[in-house]
């Protein structure tokens, strides 16, 4: 998966982005596996408590490594790419904070419950949208 700002990559940025994407994918797969195992553990005795801990721990480890790779990507990034990513992260954080603080009020008014995962999805979508908007802002004419 190429980020929206892929055209702003140097060779090193592309390599760093590739490393981040691979660990992100591994973390997503581990997360899905851990979620499925925990959901069906009552029906499937083969999913022992030790295996459950292993799956959740693996998802956590992969997510931490993906985060480390993203920080490396950001630190070594081309300066315009870094600005685009920081603007995108700012938008993602702001959107996440607004939703986390205000959506519970809408829940009191009868809106469906969003939960922590819903907030995380909003944050990630806002990050992606911010990435696209910032990349669009700084490109043009070519």
């Amino acid at each position, binding site marked *: 998966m190429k980020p929206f700002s892929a055209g*702003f*990559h*140097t060779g090193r940025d592309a390599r760093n982005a590739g490393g981040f994407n691979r660990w992100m994918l591994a973390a997503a797969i581990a997360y899905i596996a851990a979620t499925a195992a925990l959901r069906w553990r009552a029906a499937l005795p083969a999913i022992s408590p030790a295996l459950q801990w292993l799956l959740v721990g693996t998802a956590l480890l992969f997510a931490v490594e993906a985060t480390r790779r993203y920080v490396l990507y950001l630190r070594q990034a*081309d*300066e*315009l*790419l870094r600005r685009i990513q920081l603007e995108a992260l700012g938008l993602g954080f702001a959107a996440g904070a607004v939703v986390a603080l205000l959506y519970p009020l809408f829940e009191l008014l009868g809106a469906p419950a969003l939960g922590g995962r819903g907030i995380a999805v909003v944050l990630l979508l806002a990050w992606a949208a911010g990435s696209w908007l910032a990349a669009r802002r700084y*490109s043009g*004419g*070519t």
Partner: protein
Amino acid sequence: MRNRLRVLRAERSWSQGELADRLGVSRQTVNAIETGRYDPSLPLAFSIARLFDLAIEQVFEPEG
């Protein structure tokens, strides 16, 4: 901030990609500087001036 990057590059018949490689930045960064959408950091501005063997104020000047 205004700059003469496009003119200086054209004088040397360099593509944006070639200039980007010489500076160690992406082609889009060169494009964004040339079109005035992005002002480079001070280290990059110095690198650009050094590459063209000019003083920084001969490449960049403030607007207005």
